[in-house]
């Protein structure tokens, strides 16, 4: 810890910082915890999609307080935990007023780490319907930025055929502390044939999941969270990281596989390990990644190739092997592939052309694979972490780090567990309708997309 950092975190430093407007960041609600206050449900049309989903989740709801056109705006008597808006019937610009009228009192009354969740329909239909759908996205992003004290806003866009069954895992994730650092995001949920009648506590029980880059940081945390949710972990990392890898594998009761994912036979070795242990492979989390940062003018072919190979090409080669139905220990139907993109990839980041290429590539890859694997009920998704506090980011000089980690709507860095929880949601067998999505875990970075 640098001297400057020590001073900053001393009682005097904290007092000065707060005077100049650098507030102590809100401690976020995390884990499988529900909002403390009431969950307010605002159905803006005839749809009962949100109401039925909340019933499956076993959450009691309250009616919203609606802003009046004139006079003093009415308020909630106590803090509320969440506002869930069913906007799936909205098609006209004039109808957006109904959304404003439920948002205004609710935003004011939202508790710390509260939630605004808007359900909307996929945009098709006439010009106005499509404009309204896009307007909802703008509203969501803005509410996310205006909310304070760790509260978040997210927009879930659903297909026409989606049933409450398809939304249980999504709405559960969005309301619970697991989505702590997911803010201002929009993602899509499609219909599936799965019947879901409750949120599972251990959705991954009995499922084998490979996590690459598992020895430390985010990968180690992914392993822990998935194991908590019941998964049997095959922890993969390069042989030189074996000591830390063994510690993770033993901690989560899984197995360690020392392996360089760029090796030609990496996919074969992973499948052989899974098959050898008598398991069926349910999912793989392609977490392993490297950076070789340089401004483009200083980026040579080696830096370019190594980053693209580790971060993108290697997982494509491994996927090819695991997706071959002839591979013993390959991905079972109904399985899951998770990639790790990055906000650097989605928004671009100075000095990271190679990294951005690879990470945006991952986003492209999961999008491309999703429709092709739909007939096997295999979903492919990615998470895009923003500033996550890890050993790696702890090495960023203090002032720069402070600026980075405060540069989002939640004014703080995320934790590895936030990335892991989002991955856990995507891996949930009940998230069968979520595919081809990239969910940013960035606290709504102010910079970039």
């Amino acid at each position, binding site marked *: 810890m640098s001297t400057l950092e020590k001073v900053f975190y001393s009682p005097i430093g904290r007092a000065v910082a707060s005077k100049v407007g650098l507030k102590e960041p809100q401690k976020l609600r995390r884990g499988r915890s529900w909002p403390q206050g009431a969950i307010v449900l605002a159905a803006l049309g005839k749809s009962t999609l949100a109401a039925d989903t909340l019933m499956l989740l076993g959450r009691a709801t309250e009616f919203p307080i609606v802003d009046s056109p004139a006079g003093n705006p009415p308020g909630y008597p106590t803090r509320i935990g969440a506002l869930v808006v069913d906007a799936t019937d909205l098609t006209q610009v004039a109808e957006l007023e109904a959304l404003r009228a439920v948002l205004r009192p609710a935003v004011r009354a939202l508790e710390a780490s509260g939630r605004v969740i808007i359900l909307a329909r996929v945009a098709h239909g006439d010009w106005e319907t499509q404009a309204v759908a896009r307007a909802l996205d703008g509203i969501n992003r803005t509410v996310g930025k205006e909310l304070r004290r760790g509260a978040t806003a997210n927009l879930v866009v659903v297909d026409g055929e989606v049933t409450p069954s398809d939304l249980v895992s999504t709405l559960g994730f969005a309301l619970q502390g697991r989505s702590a650092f997911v803010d201002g995001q929009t993602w899509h949920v499609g219909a599936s044939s799965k019947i879901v009648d409750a949120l599972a506590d251990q959705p991954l029980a009995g499922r084998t999941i490979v996590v690459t880059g598992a020895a430390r940081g985010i990968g180690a945390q992914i392993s822990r969270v998935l194991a908590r949710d019941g998964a049997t972990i095959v922890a993969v990392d390069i042989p030189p990281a074996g*000591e830390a890898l*063994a*510690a993770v594998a033993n901690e989560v009761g899984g*197995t*360690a596989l020392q*392996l360089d994912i760029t*090796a030609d036979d990496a996919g074969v070795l992973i499948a052989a390990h899974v098959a050898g242990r008598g398991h069926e492979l349910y999912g793989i989390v392609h977490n392993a990644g490297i950076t070789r940062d340089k401004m483009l003018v200083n980026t040579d072919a080696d830096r370019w190739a190594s980053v693209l190979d580790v971060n993108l090409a290697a997982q494509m080669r491994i996927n090819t092997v695991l997706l071959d139905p002839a591979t013993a220990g390959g991905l079972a139907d109904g399985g899951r592939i998770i990639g790790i993109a990055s906000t650097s990839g989605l928004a671009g980041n100075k000095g990271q052309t190679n990294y951005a290429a690879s990470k945006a590539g991952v986003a492209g890859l999961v999008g491309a694979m999703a429709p092709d694997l739909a007939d096997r009920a295999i979903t492919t998704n990615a998470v895009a972490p923003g500033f996550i506090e890890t050993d790696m980011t702890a090495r960023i000089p203090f002032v720069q780090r402070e600026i980075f980690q405060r540069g989002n709507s939640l004014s703080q860095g995320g934790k590895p567990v936030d990335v892991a929880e989002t991955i856990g949601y995507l891996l949930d067998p009940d998230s069968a309708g979520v595919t081809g999505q990239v969910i940013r875990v960035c606290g709504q970075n102010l910079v970039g997309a």
Partner: protein
Amino acid sequence: MSHNAVVIGGNRTPFAKSGGVFAEASNHDLLTAAIDGLSARFGLAGTRIGEVAAGAVLKHPHDFNLTREAVLSSSLSPLSPACDLQQACGTGLETTIYIANKIALGQIDSGIAGGTDSASDAPITVSDPLRRILLKASAARSTRDRIKAFAKVRPSYLAPEAPRVVEPRTGLSMGEHQALTTKTWQIGREDQDELAAASHHKLAAAWDKGFFDDLVTPYLGVTRDAIMRPDTTVAKLSQLKPAFGGANGTMTAGNSTALSDGAATVLLANEDWAREHHLPVLARFVDGNVTAVDHPAGSDLLLAPVAATGRMLDRNGLTLDDFDLVEIHEAFASTVLATLAAWESDEYCRGIGINSAIGTLDRTKLNVCGSSLAVGHPFAATGARIVPTLAKLLHERGPGSRGLISICAAGGQGVVAILEAM
């Protein structure tokens, strides 16, 4: 009911020169790390293992229950019992035999054999006169008696004593004993240097192709065997001065094993247990044997494994040609060469009670991934290093492939074993 004892796999730390990168690690630390790596590789966290047997040659008195304590520090179930065994450099193979025997008898389903040694963590003790004075002082009833006792302390008593590396019966170090054997068997310098260089080259090649990725777990940032010199040559080794056998000796630091730190483990089980737990079955533990020679009477101390090998082959109805691979522990390059020469000698073999010469070994079968000269030799760990390495090599060759292990040990003892791929 038959109980096939099979080798599932193994794990070890990288080995390093003593006083080097592992200087701060104790035997307990090293053994725990080796067990934890094994546990991670095979998913044994929280698993109750039938028994864990391991040992150390250089051992502190406070490590009296070394293996059990290491188990308690590890991720294995604390309900896994353990014992310490020690048979000098044969420890790691003797523990394997012990565990395999218990499995074969149906007493346990699964077991871990191992060994650890840290020449860095050697027990330093006080001199005998000082110990007597301290005992007397502690038993004294008055201050006066206590002072009287302490008055007898002489400066020379205060020098700490490192464990002696000489044979108590002969007063000769292991190297000095081997120097006698080297001379008797007329083992040349160049042959020794060639064997040493080949050991380093074969080990380096195995590392480069990833052979050890599922046999070794890095420890304290050391990711490969630290003694290994991939670029050494016979020419470079020929420059070294003799270390044993006087000015005209042929044994150097380059063709003798270095004092080393490290730990190794082997996972064994009965075949049914292994298959039920979906664990790999690499090789069957066929037989093991230990013999001793009367080295104070002049026998070649480090050739004790020859008799062990001869008797074991006889009772299994096997000849040297029945083996696809042979692992002879490289205590010194000349130990291996003298062993091979002794195998070829009718006269020597008859002299030790074997019907005829054991035979001539096809040298391409010998130590194909290198051995102790390049890897290092933490005394008690070596056997537990060799067993999984050989089991994996045999398994790669296919079912029925047979391997022989020969390890010489202090006190004129030899520990040998046969593995057969499944």
